[in-house]
């Protein structure tokens, strides 16, 4: 009985892993052949389409744009999130629960609707489509996340350290910079990293709010108009490779910090 459960479990797990990995394996495999269609039979390997991607200035500038929007909007989101979390955790503000609810509200609304709302507002106010507009949208989606993460980590033991610093005569800004920020660094870092990930991968808000200069997901979307295209495979594989390197890097950093 036990052995049977084990065998069935193994088969099931292999089937699910197969399902999860199937598209990405196909993506990477057929990015490595020289023919103009990324379809079987496999005739590789060749790096022809990777050269084509790196020579495509639209794609490379979209990549830079994406990084820029992700870094700036995440920095803004984590700053606003941290300040508000500190304010709500350390001061008794009237209507606190309601206001905290307001800040986290965007988490429950789909990106499409947030993007639509900003499009209507900016259109009405005469603000042109731009990377900045998309960045504003990315702060809207990431601020609640940063706030929730940092607020949930503001425990009582940090209060005592802050109070000790105040007793020793530190002004409020020094408490903030020298005590609170370093103590909260893991939560701040987690908020920033998650925001970067979401902004980097965000499509629909950027699609609605940018025009000529745009982000990488939108540029990849434009490539899709040409149907199955090995260049799309190559750029997708590159994004995948970069993400994996980053994730492994962060994972190792987190593992190393933990006491063995």
């Amino acid at each position, binding site marked *: 009985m036990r052995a049977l459960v*084990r065998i069935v479990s193994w088969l*099931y*797990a292999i089937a*699910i*892993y197969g*399902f*999860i*990995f*199937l*598209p*990405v394996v*196909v*993506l990477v495999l*057929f990015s490595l052949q020289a023919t103009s*269609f990324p*379809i*079987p039979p496999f005739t590789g390997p060749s790096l022809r389409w990777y050269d084509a991607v790196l020579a495509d200035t639209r794609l490379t500038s979209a990549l830079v744009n994406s990084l820029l929007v992700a870094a700036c909007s995440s920095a803004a989101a984590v700053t*606003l999130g941290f*300040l*508000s979390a500190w*304010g*709500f*955790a*350390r*001061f*008794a*503000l009237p209507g*606190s629960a309601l*206001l905290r609810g*307001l*800040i986290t509200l965007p988490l*429950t*609304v*789909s*990106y*499409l*609707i*947030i993007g*639509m*709302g900003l*499009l*209507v*507002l900016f259109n009405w106010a005469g603000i042109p489509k731009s990377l900045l507009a998309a960045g504003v949208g990315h702060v809207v989606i990431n*601020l609640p996340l940063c*706030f929730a993460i940092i607020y949930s980590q503001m425990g*009582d033991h940090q*209060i005592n350290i802050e109070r000790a610093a105040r007793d020793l005569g530190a002004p409020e800004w020094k408490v903030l910079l020298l005590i609170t920020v370093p103590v909260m660094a893991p939560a701040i870092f987690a908020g920033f990293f998650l925001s970067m990930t979401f902004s980097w*991968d965000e*499509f629909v808000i950027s699609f*609605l709010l940018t025009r000529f200069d745009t982000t990488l997901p939108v540029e*990849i*979307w434009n490539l*899709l108009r040409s149907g*199955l295209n090995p260049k*799309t*495979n190559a750029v*997708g594989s590159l*994004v995948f490779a970069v*993400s*994996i390197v980053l994730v492994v890097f962060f994972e190792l950093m987190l593992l190393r910090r933990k006491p063995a």
Partner: protein
Amino acid sequence: MNSATNSGRALPRAGWALVTPALGWTLLFFVLPFVAMGFSSLTAHDGGGFTLANYGQFFTNPAYWQAMVNSLQVTAIVTVVSVLLAYPFAWILAEQVPERWQRLALMLAVLPFWTSYVVRSYSWLLVLAQNGVINRALTGSGLFSEPLQLANTRLATVIGFVHFFVMLLTLTIFANLKQLSPSYRKAAADLGAGPVRTFLHVVLPLTLPGIMVGAFLTFVLCVGDYITPQILGGNNELLMPQLVMMQIGRRGDFPLASALSIILMAVVTIAYLACARWLKIERA
């Protein structure tokens, strides 16, 4: 948080200075756009005054109504299939895989999702296309003489969604299973229940709230998604987000797009209220 009251000499005014930027941002770029969308939805596309025609169109035009029905059907199918596939997988990872390998097993399951979302949908197109991997394998093995129409169908949309949500639900259900204290299972065993009965009467009911949270998350993310149905389903059958985007793209009809967005949001809110009540009953 009970810390707010004992912060010593801290002044509320300083507190307001800290929370105002975030509140202002939320009001200006989240609440105000919503109000603008509400106003826009009550105006006519070609100018003119207040009208309910945009909402009226949704209820009278069968094509629009159908998009909502399609969206809800696809979402329901995706949610049920994903839970059914993810639960056994999460159980295997939590119970059958040795403790020290579990972290690696989970990381492996999440790995393929570090591509861009757009690229992931495109990858399924490579698999499902007329001359894609599956059709080549089927015709090559002689099982079928003609390639199957897999891409640009509802099936393709469902597969694309299920792929993502199986991973997401595996994570939530796994976390749930790990939180269960082993003493419940020991108690059930001591009282004479076999593994099957223990699972059905102890483990499953205790993980049900977690499943509901995951299912609700699936519903919200799935019903508002544009990429997967647009890339994999194509335009043969429209879902709500595709209908919304179509109003902006082809016709620049912001009022109608606003009205449809608000209707879509209302549906999510109703689902949330229904789910919240259900969860509360479960906890009591």
